[in-house]
């Protein structure tokens, strides 16, 4: 035990290439610390190693009363507006979600030593650790590398984690086990020169079959569905899917690509994307935009052409001779649960078994799902789980996109014993895959982009729904809820039965956390259709919305009608009427809790900039006009539903016009309704001045209006119309955000003026003291 540095301790136990890369990264950290490396270049370097920023890392935080400085010191930043000492998030790639017990034990140690003893499973089968200091990351990476895990390209504009169905190898409907192919693709692309020059990230996914949801290939940049043709293995390959602000369904690139060609084909896609994909405008840089722009035929032609040009590489086919080992032998011999034991282990066991255990293709074995609350488990639990996996599950653990963990090859006869072991570790929550198994992205807890508290709402729903689950209608119990903290859809709200994404509204002169209700998404068929926004409700009422929708569904559904079919049959207007009663917000004086988000005690604000929430008369003017925009956006969805795509697009365009006019009216009340004049004034005042831009998306949402205004030709096609309606909704959100920023600026100026006027006479107060406080409070009172 003489060596005390991980570098020395693990010397020789890491892949030499990986070890050298980590050493380089450590050297870059040192150089950046000394200010010898460019800030932006360093930021991209660290992102490519999975070292992310985290909320408040600009050193500012709203504490419920005011924006405060977090005194992190003045070392050079980790990136633009990213302070060195501010904690960040470390993402850890887990290809196809497959882990061994030994790997999980290392993750447990890392969470305890570098994070807050919480391991978080993401919606892309990764693990994330939060509150990690950048100087701890090289050792963290070494310890992972020593057990064959890399964080390389876990973030940044490159190939992200290769996901795969967690039932691969044991599933009843799959063509074959995709796990070794997912692993092969990951190894082939990791650090490959052809994937280093993307304008944006690239997410691949594998599915063993067409019809289930597990792989979700339709919402990925590139997806592979296992197929066997004439006895040969291969894939149906799709490309250009993606959620994000504007979701796209992937298109079929090839109905069948033999396994011996799929690496070559993927490399060709990467080269085409790197060459022709958008680089400057991040908002249009995902491959979905390139595929949409070129059309799938042209894209396919380019890929075929490129495949001819790709230099010969033995690795394209050599992996077939030595497919990566992805499956360990079961721990126990297959055995059914003896008939005399049925019903002997209590109602809790039976309840858990019903929802969390499912038979495998292999007789006598089943797969057991650990319903992790919000995707979290502790280091202690992870160690207990490692023991359990060794004992019962062949040392094999899989994470899932539902933020759960699967244990496979559990002998059915072992279920009672396994249940006891899991219960002891606090890992036996029932209800996997049911309404209580809520998925949520990190949201305002730790994400810089979060608007509302997705995890706070998820925790609340989990608690309240679990309490009601006993007498719940089976159809309701089977519903899925997914929540994102903003429109970016990391919580995959587009494919939930009931989806939510966070936004905010100005009410009573303050900001109120809201969630947009998204209904009608479909998970099956690998996520074949996306839900649509139905209306925004205050966060506090979101649980009531779930109750109202599920109650109405249970009461009025026709026999086997799915939730999607039910909402489609009712129609948007009727579904909206169910939500309508929950869209109102009581005044602050009556119900101040509406102005505080779930799992928080601070009065709500948008962003971490600590924008003071003030607004004058402009609120009412803006509010009235923007309501017209919301109602046009809703009409757009109704038209789409009725199959009138052109009318849908027209409503969507008008919705953006109203939102733009709402902003213009805050400064120029007599603006006409003439579209040319509205767009011209809005562009001059808000777009060209970049006042409409947000810190992250920049002018992306504003461009939607300019594009539509310049070209009014309808696409005449459902998917494109749906996208344009989605864009209009985002434009409205951006208008809300812009108005909030402007109001805050105006209020800030008012308080400065007030302070200056009194400065001469007043006693000098502490910092921005008494005078500023008085005028700020005065402004608020004046508004009430």
């Amino acid at each position, binding site marked *: 035990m003489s060596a005390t540095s991980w570098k020395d301790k693990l010397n020789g136990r890491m892949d030499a290439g990986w070890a050298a890369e980590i050493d380089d990264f450590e050297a870059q950290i040192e150089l950046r610390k000394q200010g010898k490396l460019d800030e932006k270049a360093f930021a991209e370097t660290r992102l490519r190693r999975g070292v992310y920023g985290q909320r408040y890392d600009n050193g500012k935080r709203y504490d419920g009363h005011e924006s405060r400085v977090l005194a992190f010191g003045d070392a050079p930043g980790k990136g633009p507006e990213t302070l060195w000492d501010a904690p960040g998030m470390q993402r850890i790639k887990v290809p196809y979600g497959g882990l061994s017990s030994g790997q999980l034990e290392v993750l447990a140690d890392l969470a305890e030593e570098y994070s807050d003893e919480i391991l978080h499973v993401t919606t892309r089968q990764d693990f994330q650790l939060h509150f990690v200091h950048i100087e701890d990351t090289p050792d963290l990476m070494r310890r992972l590398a020593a057990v064959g895990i890399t964080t390389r390209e876990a973030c940044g504009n490159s190939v992200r984690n290769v996901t795969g169905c967690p039932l691969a190898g044991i599933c009843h409907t799959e063509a074959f086990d995709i796990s070794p192919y997912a692993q092969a693709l990951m190894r082939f692309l990791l650090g490959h020169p052809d994937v280093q020059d993307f304008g944006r990230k690239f997410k691949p996914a594998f599915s063993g079959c067409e019809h289930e949801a597990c792989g979700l290939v339709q919402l990925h940049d590139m997806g592979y569905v296992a197929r066997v043709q004439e006895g040969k293995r291969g894939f149906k390959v799709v490309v250009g899917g993606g959620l994000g602000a504007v979701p796209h369904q992937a298109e079929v690139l090839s109905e069948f690509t033999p396994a011996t060609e799929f690496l070559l084909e993927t490399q060709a896609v990467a080269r085409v994307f790197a060459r022709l994909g958008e680089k400057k405008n991040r908002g249009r840089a995902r491959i979905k935009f390139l595929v949409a722009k070129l059309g799938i035929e042209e894209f396919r032609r380019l890929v075929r052409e490129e495949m001819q040009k790709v230099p010969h590489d033995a690795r394209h086919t050599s992996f077939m001779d030595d497919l990566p080992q992805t499956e360990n032998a079961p721990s126990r011999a297959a055995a059914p649960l003896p008939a005399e034991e049925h019903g002997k282990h209590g109602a809790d066991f039976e309840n858990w078994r019903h929802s969390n255990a499912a038979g495998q293709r292999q007789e006598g074995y089943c797969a057991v799902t650990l319903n992790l609350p919000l995707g979290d488990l502790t280091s202690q639990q992870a160690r207990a789980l490692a023991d359990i996996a060794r004992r019962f599950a062949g040392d094999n653990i899989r994470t899932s996109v539902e933020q759960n963990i699967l244990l496979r090859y559990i002998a059915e006869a072992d279920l009672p014993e396994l249940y006891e072991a899991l219960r002891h570790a606090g890992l036996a929550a029932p209800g996997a895959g049911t309404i209580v198994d809520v998925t949520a992205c990190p949201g305002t807890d730790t994400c810089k982009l979060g608007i509302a508290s997705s995890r706070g709402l998820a925790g609340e729903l989990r608690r309240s729904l679990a309490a009601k689950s006993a007498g719940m209608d089976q159809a309701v119990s089977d519903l899925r809820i997914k929540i994102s903290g903003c429109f970016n859809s990391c919580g995959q709200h587009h494919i939930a039965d009931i989806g939510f994404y966070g936004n905010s509204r100005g009410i009573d002169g303050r900001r109120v956390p809201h969630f947009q209700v998204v209904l009608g998404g479909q998970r099956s068929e690998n996520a074949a259709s996306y839900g649509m926004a139905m209306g925004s409700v205050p966060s506090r009422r979101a649980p009531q919305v779930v109750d109202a929708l599920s109650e109405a569904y249970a009461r009025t559904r026709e026999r086997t009608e799915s939730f999607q079919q039910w909402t489609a049959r009712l129609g948007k207007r009727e579904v909206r009427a169910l939500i309508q009663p929950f869209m109102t917000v009581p005044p602050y004086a009556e119900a101040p809790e509406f102005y505080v988000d779930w799992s928080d005690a601070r009065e709500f604000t948008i962003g971490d900039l600590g924008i003071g929430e003030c607004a004058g008369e402009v609120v009412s003017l803006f509010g009235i006009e923007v309501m017209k925009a919301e109602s046009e956006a809703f009409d757009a969805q109704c038209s789409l539903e009725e199959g009138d795509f052109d009318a849908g697009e027209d409503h969507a365009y008008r919705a953006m016009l109203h939102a733009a006019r709402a902003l213009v009216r805050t400064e120029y009340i007599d603006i006409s309704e003439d579209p040319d004049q509205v767009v011209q004034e809005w562009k001059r005042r808000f777009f060209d001045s970049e006042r409409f831009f947000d810190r992250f998306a920049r002018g992306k949402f504003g461009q939607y209006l300019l594009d539509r205004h310049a070209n009014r030709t309808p696409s005449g096609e459902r998917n494109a119309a749906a996208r344009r309606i989605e864009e209009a909704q985002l434009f409205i959100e951006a208008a809300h955000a812009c108005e909030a920023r402007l109001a805050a600026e105006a209020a800030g100026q008012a308080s400065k003026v007030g302070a200056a006027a009194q400065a001469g006479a007043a006693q000098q*107060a502490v910092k921005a003291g008494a005078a500023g406080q008085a005028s700020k*409070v005065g402004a608020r009172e004046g508004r009430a």
Partner: protein
Amino acid sequence: MNPLRLSLRFPLLGAKEGGAAPQPFEAERVYAAAITVFHRFIQRGMVEGLLIDVADYQHVPQGPGVLLVGHDIDYGISERGFQVVRKRQANTPAALQLQGALRMGLAALRALEEDGSLGLAFDTTNFTVQVYDRAVAEPAAAGAKALEAELAGPLTEWLGTGATFTAQVEDDPREAPALQVAAPGLSAAALLARLGEARPPGQSPWDISVEALKRLRDTGAELMLIDVREPAEFETVNLGGTLVPLATLPEKLKELPKQAHIVVHCKAGGRGARAVQQLRDAGFDNAWNLAGGILAWSERIDKALPRY
């Protein structure tokens, strides 16, 4: 040994009210209160450390509960007790880290107790010390023995010779080493005094220390400092507050904004205590008295200030 992280955990004593029998842990109520009180700690700089945010893990069974996450220390409340994790002190020997963790942890417990909203008490005479750093600390039983060898000396110095140490015997080689410390009859206040965190006797139920005021000022908090001394005293020395002699406070009340974050101070804290009582009675929910007044400030923060 200079570990990356050192943890200190005080177990739950049971609910404070209701006599001897500990009440069940009312998770939902306790965690809601913990979230509120931790945010308040950040707002008012009531505990030590560069405080960042509150993390809610109440959904995780056997988990860390609700955390107040800082740059150099985390505070946590859960069914497992009250935990402090000292971090980012890797150039400091474990004994000194422990000293800091004890001081900060006990002071935070005192602040929690004074706040009162949690309705829980923690056992400060029994606690567990762990180090989380597998590069420098052996795990499990062997590591626990090493921990005892290194920490028993300094701990005895602070806790008295009555303190006993039990190195963890459970031998899971993956677990961080743990040292159980028992100091029956130990007074937390006396220990805090020994660790340099003595507190002047409470002057009002709404005291704020000079250190906390300093932290608030350093982080640019928007607060109104009101000096309730007489004009002649103000001329002698002042902290830049607004002069409102105590006798004139009642007539000034209606001019002050109700929601303002107010700190009042006098020479030594007595008049301030009366002033804060008047403010609180008038509905100022965020008004505080600077404990020890300007004298304490000149003793502990700015020694250059003249005393009178």
